[in-house]
């Protein structure tokens, strides 16, 4: 299971890549593995929409389940990865690059301070696996 360093992770299995005041969000390798084959991605937001901390920005549907993807901070949507609409399997094959989901201009980057780093997230996953 890959957990790239340099990213931040939420306990709800999203990753965040911070670039200045902009944050790119996707789901972790662990999350895609738990979901199994992703068959559909539905975005709940459009470009220019405001999101509040914890809002669902997308729903990911796999052959097993449908799960929300939440954004852990407030801001304005500046891009969504439309490739996922036709190729949702990117979430399985390339969760950290081709499978990015939304890019958001943050109101306050410090809202992301309580997310986990790669090490913390790995430890959290091990704990969950028991």
């Amino acid at each position: 299971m890959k957990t790239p360093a340099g990213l931040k992770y939420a306990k709800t299995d999203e990753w965040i890549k911070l670039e200045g005041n902009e944050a790119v969000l996707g789901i972790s390798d662990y999350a895609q593995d738990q979901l199994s084959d992703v068959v559909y991605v539905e975005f709940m937001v459009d470009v220019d929409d405001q999101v509040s901390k914890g809002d669902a920005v997308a729903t990911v549907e796999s052959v097993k389940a449908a799960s929300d993807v939440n954004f852990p901070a407030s801001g304005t949507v500046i891009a969504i990865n439309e490739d996922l609409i036709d190729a949702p399997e990117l979430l399985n094959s390339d969760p950290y690059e081709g499978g990015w989901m939304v890019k958001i201009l943050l109101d306050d980057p410090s809202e992301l301070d309580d997310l986990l780093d790669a090490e913390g997230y790995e430890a959290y996953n091990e704990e969950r696996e028991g």
Partner: protein
Amino acid sequence: MFTPHTPQEINEMLKVIGVDKIEDLFQSVPEKYRFPKLDIAAPLSEMEVAAELGEIASANASTDDFISFLGAGAYDHYIPAVVDMLLRRGEFYTAYTPYQPEVSQGTLQAIFEFQSLMSELTGMDVSNASHYDGATATAEAANMAFHIFRGKRKKILVSRTVNPQYRETIRTYMQGQENVQVTGDESDTSFDNDTQQLIDKIDNNTAVVLVQYPDFFGRIIDYTKLVNAAHEQGTLVAFVFNPTALGLLKPPGAFDADIAVGDGQPLGIPLSFGGPYLGIFTTKEKHLRKLAGRLVGETVDDSGNRAYVLTLTAREQHIRREKSTSNICTNQGLMALAATIYLSALGKSGFKQVANLCYQKAHYAADQISSLEGYELAFKETPFFHEFVIKTPKPVNQINLHLQNHWILGGYDLSQDYPELENHMLIAVTEKISKDDIDEFVMALEEVAHD
């Protein structure tokens, strides 16, 4: 009586929750209300009960006794004997999709065939396994459109000539959504057939426009302009159709409708004092994920044999729960099967013939009635299918009382829903009505005008 628990088990449970006897569970109900004296008759034997119920039932009259010109959403069509004969087979005679659906391949195949027939009938890409009836299917159409825009478009436009009960059901379904406006059918709206008033109300906050086809007055309205105007604003269009009419008319799919819904009752389902009926729901493939209810798909099993499955279930409330489009997933399995058998028995040409007979007989009736003194065809500038509006010389309820003496069920009194249509009767004619029936109806109408 069915008692699933033994006294021993009951005592065990009482012990766990810490009470002595079942009565202790009801202490919050005041004692005098716990076992009130019920004013019911003494017990009767089975034979006595059967006799009494038979006597009560014989006070009802049905369309076996009356010639019916009553439509307004439910229609008295002929039902071939094969429909009931197959429907009542034990293998099919359960209204629910079983909870281990794939075990019941026959049930799933029947639903799959139903979906295929509905897609073909409407010219739409996909159909679900059905809803309760036309009213709930229509409300689900509004609901789906609302969800397609993720609640961002707050306006639902509904034509005033959509069945009044359906419009009420839309409002009932949407009342839980915040700030949603169901509009377009205000009482000062005219009945113009150019749909311009509705078009003028479409804006980029409108999720969907719902129109009826033929409309509640039986009129065949060309919705091409309305569909184009709606699509220019990104607004969806839902057609509420009569399935029989689609035997003759251009289907909703050919208008580029986004959703097409209707009541399947005319397809081999008896009037039955109002139900059970059948809600048909079809849409474009791109809205598949937002489609409520069950969907059956065809696939192959691990030995390559054709097999049927419930598919795309992640859309549904049992997985997506509060995020699903609708929390009503029940389908009318048995009624869907009736419609499937009915359409299969009639075939393409038989179905067209039924539609054509309805059309021709209705037009004969309209001609005859409107030639009577005091009676006039309303909306005469618009073509109609098998239902039309007649302006009458007396209040409709008075006329209908008189018609009952002739064992005729008159038409629907439109003043109930449209105050400006006092003395306007909505008359339906199906293939079951003979020329003699129509002539008798015309004579009775003439008689009552001169009373």
